[in-house]
């Protein structure tokens, strides 16, 4: 762990990215922002893979995985945005509160 301070900083940023993402999910009411929160979370996790590759010396593998994660997550984001578009189309709002009719 010769590059300890760097690793430390990266760990901090991973946790804060994931935390900000989750907070965004919890707190925001706009559907687009919810998707952004999801993206933030996953980007933090992708960084965790890079860090892992760096720590264990398997940078290639780590980068491959991080790229795969980004691709997969983009698809999810696209799906989410498509749904958001439909919701805006049908309900005329992007407020997440409009999506609480199914309960009990």
């Amino acid at each position: 762990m010769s590059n300890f301070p760097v690793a430390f900083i990266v760990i901090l940023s991973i946790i804060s990215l994931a935390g900000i993402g989750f907070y965004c999910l919890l707190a925001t009411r706009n559907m687009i922002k919810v998707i952004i929160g999801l993206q933030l979370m996953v980007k933090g996790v992708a960084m965790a893979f890079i860090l892992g590759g760096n720590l264990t010396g398997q940078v290639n593998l780590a980068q491959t995985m991080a790229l795969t994660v980004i691709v997969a997550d983009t698809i999810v984001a696209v799906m989410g945005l498509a749904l958001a578009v439909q919701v805006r189309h049908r309900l005329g709002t992007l407020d997440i509160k409009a999506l609480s009719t199914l309960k009990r």
Partner: protein
Amino acid sequence: MNSVLITLGLIALPLVAAPIIYLFGRTSVRKQRLLGMTLAKLLTLLVLVLEGLLIYLGVQVWVAGGSVATNIGTIQVGLDGIGLIVGTIAVGLGFCVVIFSIPYMENENGEEKYYALLLTLIGSIVGLACSMDLFNLWVWFELMAISSYFLVAFYNEQPASLESGFKYLTQSAVGSALVLFGIAILFSTTGSVAMWSVWSNATSGTPIVYAAAALIIVGFGIKAALVPLHTWLPDAHSQAPSGISAMLSGIVIEAGLVAMLRTLSVLAQTHFPSGIILLVFGCVNILAGNLLALRQVEVKRMLAYSSIAQVGYMLVGFGVAILSSSYVAAAGGFFHMLTHAMMKGLAFLAAGAFLYVLHIGKGEHTALVLDDLNGAAKKYPVVAFLLSLALLGLGGLPPLAGFMSKWQILVATAGVNSTLMICIVIFVALNSVLSLAYYVPVINRLYRLNISETAAAGRSISWIMVLPMVILAVGIVVIGVWPSLANFLTFNAAASLMYPFGV
């Protein structure tokens, strides 16, 4: 056929076929809709039959003493016991659902996408079950999730459908992010994502490994509907097209559970207390699921909640298996997975058939409530009988399949010589009785003499819809009177699961 070809075929076939099916359906939309769609449906069925054949060939290789596995780059994939049972359920249930959907989805907007995505869903579940690599497992899991998002929100002009789709998407995406985080941590600490090398490298229970395990349980737990992570489930199950509800309940949530078990088995040497955690979640799931279902008036929502309870039985089985290194318990868990797929599949298909003939077939997207079913047996005797059969099976009444699988789980639980386990047996059995309190009144309604207005005005039912239900019903009864038929599947799966735990 050699094992490499079998493995690759098993995984690649549905994914290669799915776009072709879409194209068949798509190109024909403007010109000759009928021809193209028929071809698409037939191709879907053909691919599923081929998948079944490949699984069968894989088993033949197995029985001859070989192993069905190969490497794609550094990624190891192979058909082991778990892959066999999950693949069988996915392909078998998928086959029934595809047949059921032929009349159900007829002329829906986007019909051609439906079959392509359904096949992708099935293919991704098979892939997930065959994967021997943590990251690859996640990729299949994500593919399964993505294909199911679309299917859940299929009726994209219905607000309720969109709502459930969006909630499902976000919660599921959060789950997969958590899983990924856990896998990243494991990768950082062990330097690998291949299951066996993680298994051999992760030997001590450091806090960081425990954190990874917790994230993985919660992440996969969202998909597997562990209470309190289950909140997406009743919405998604009740709003999806009925065939998809059957798939979601019958195999998708179980696929989440299987992925969780695979990952936990990798951590077997770290003494992570996964057994007790699963057991606790199991008991909570059973009780919460039953209570939540008790006062439901929407049929599909009730079935959805009952899925939460049924997953609880599997969790109890697997929890006991891991806790006490019990082979029988693991086999019981897988057995319940199999029987639940048949029973809940049948229940959702039958409920879906009612939903179709009473509401959706007439273009109304209202929910099927219990009152609609009053006296339905008079007009739809076969479907009413099949629904009753499925519900009685789910309630654990003999001689149906559900009783036998619960029995196996309970035998194993009682086999752990402790007072706590006896209490769990009593708790689980009493909950089975509690579940009767919501299954049985539905049956009473079906057999009333005074038919409800909705049921009286229903359309006639197509035999194509009934056919897959009959197949499932026969399976339920046959397994119920001859439970050891399933032993080959369940005990091989148990062997694969318990091997990393040193059993």
